[in-house]
């Protein structure tokens, strides 16, 4: 059993001095789990998240996690997570692409059950046809179930969001699951610099009695409880009961914004706020966007970046304010449907300014030149030759 000292969450996440390591995204996620005082982790293989759960398994074998097993399939894994969390444990699991969709019945019901858990979503192409390569269309399936959805740009974000995710999800006025999404392979299997907290420090254990719902452990009343009975209007239930329940979930989702501000420094990051042309991106498209801003600034073009960290709750007010004077808004994405562009368009009055692209999908990388094409278009600059990659 390794020696770890419990430290207050704020202390650990915000103030503890960190060490610099050069690790993959999968390692970053596992390192966060190691420091998060997790009780139960349940695994099921699917590329590319298997790496994360392998490492979490190793951590269990070393004694940092109290229980771990491989389930029979994702629906079983996610249901077991629901059972474990209701029993009062802190849990973690990860999945990708078709695995997320297979487990979605259970995952989509977690918010309604008030299950605080962190789910790693390491995105990959959704069938058909099958491919194991990166594509984050699966995030669009998560957007309407009520859980908090965070999108990590790089390995550092993966570590930070996962560690903070446990704290955010267990806040009494939130108490819904947090999905930490990032691109498979581009982030999970590539190495980057991560400032991580010391291994000897861990988060305080979960207190299941400091919660908006009682845990099912026969230690807290009421005894005669079905915490979340089937509810539908009848002579013994109000016609409003399901509606107000859903409202509670979405209220909790909104309340999470306060903690995203506190632990993650806000739901968006803005580079060059005075720009006329903005690149709005999330996940590793934001890393490419950052590069594009650098290129543009080298050429004297006033381009800014809005990196969106939190997809749910979506930072409508902040995005609207930053983009209020933008004449063009470029939204590069790693999916065909353009879910981020839709979110942006929905919250600003000048949605015509949004250029829904460039988009790459099916495992393609996003070259900076592709973004620069749109930047030049936005400024009306004609380049003599087309980009060939």
């Amino acid at each position, binding site marked *: 059993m390794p020696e770890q000292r419990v430290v207050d969450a704020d202390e650990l996440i915000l103030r503890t001095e960190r060490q610099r390591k050069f690790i993959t995204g999968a390692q970053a996620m596992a390192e966060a789990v190691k420091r998060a005082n997790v009780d139960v982790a349940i695994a099921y293989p699917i590329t590319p998240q298997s790496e994360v759960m392998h490492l979490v398994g190793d951590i269990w074998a070393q004694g940092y996690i109290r229980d771990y097993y491989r389930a029979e399939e994702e629906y079983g894994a996610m249901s077991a997570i629901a059972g474990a969390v209701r029993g009062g444990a802190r849990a973690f699991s990860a999945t990708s692409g078709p695995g997320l969709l297979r487990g979605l019945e259970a995952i989509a019901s977690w918010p309604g059950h*008030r299950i605080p858990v962190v789910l790693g979503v390491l995105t990959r192409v959704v069938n058909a046809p099958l491919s194991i390569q990166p594509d984050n269309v699966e995030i669009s399936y998560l957007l309407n179930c009520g859980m908090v959805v965070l999108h990590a740009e790089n390995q550092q974000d993966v570590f930070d969001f996962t560690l903070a995710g446990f704290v955010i999800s267990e806040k009494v006025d939130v108490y819904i699951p947090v999905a930490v999404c990032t691109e498979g392979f581009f982030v999970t299997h590539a190495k980057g610099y991560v400032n991580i907290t010391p291994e000897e420090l861990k988060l305080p254990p979960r207190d299941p009695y400091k*919660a908006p719902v009682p845990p099912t452990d026969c230690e807290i009343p009421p005894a005669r409880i*079905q915490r979340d009975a089937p509810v539908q209007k009848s002579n013994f239930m*109000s016609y409003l009961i399901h509606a107000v329940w859903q409202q509670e979930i979405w209220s909790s989702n909104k309340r999470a914004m306060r903690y995203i501000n506190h632990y993650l420094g806000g739901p968006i990051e803005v580079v060059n706020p005075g720009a006329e042309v903005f690149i709005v991106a999330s996940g590793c498209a934001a890393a490419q966007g950052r590069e594009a801003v650098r290129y543009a600034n080298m050429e004297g073009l006033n381009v800014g970046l809005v990196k969106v960290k939190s997809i749910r709750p979506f930072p409508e007010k902040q995005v609207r304010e930053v983009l209020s004077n933008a004449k063009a808004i470029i939204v590069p994405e790693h999916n065909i449907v353009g879910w981020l562009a839709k979110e942006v368009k929905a919250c600003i009055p000048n949605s015509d300014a949004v250029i829904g692209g460039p988009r790459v999908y099916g495992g393609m990388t996003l070259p900076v030149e592709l973004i620069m094409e749109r930047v030049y278009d936005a400024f009306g600059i004609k380049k003599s030759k087309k980009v060939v990659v």
Partner: protein
Amino acid sequence: MPAEILPGPSGYIPIPAVFEDVELSPPGYGLFFGQIVDELTAMREAAKAMLTRRNPTIFPGPKILWGWNAHAMEEAKAILELAAEIPNCRIIPMPDYRPKYPKIDPEAEINPNHPNLTILHNKIEACIFVGVHCHYANLSLRMIRAGTNCFTIALCGELGHEDAMVSIRDLTPEKIRRFREVLIQVREELGISHTPTPPPENPSLPKEEFQTLSVLDYGEYSYLLIPRKDEQVTDTE
């Protein structure tokens, strides 16, 4: 600007306070009509409501009804002391959260699946929720705000409730006792005289003894309980 969360009825479906930018208060503060105010103001407004509106009722929830630890029992005692100071106060418990079949007795209990049954039946215009887990309290508060004109007060052990007219957070037995003192003071300011009396007991508790109960007490239903030998009961209601 957070909206004002006033007593209802607000309509067919309530808009949650959080959707209208109401935020929970920081420690040491409370909420009054959705606005952040200091705790004393919140307590005074709550006291005023309980003293001036009809049929004030306290709804204790499972966290204090059941004596699962010393803290719960201490809070229970403090709530009973508070109830004695409110004229015409009743206590209607919320003993659990599951939907009760076929229907609750609205004079005997309140349930988060259908709280407006109890509010409307008893014509309650001011109520205090205490010892209820936050999720179920929020459901109840919204349903009450949608369909009744009841003034709701939430005494919360955690962070408070945006959908109540008054929300007080970080509840402890000491805070309940402080609220009681504020209430006594407001009562004197309003010129209401009252000697502390415990609220009336639950109307469902029987006056009769089981030992003297006989089959004949069930009237026409007695044959359903004990069918005669070889009798097949085929009639249904």
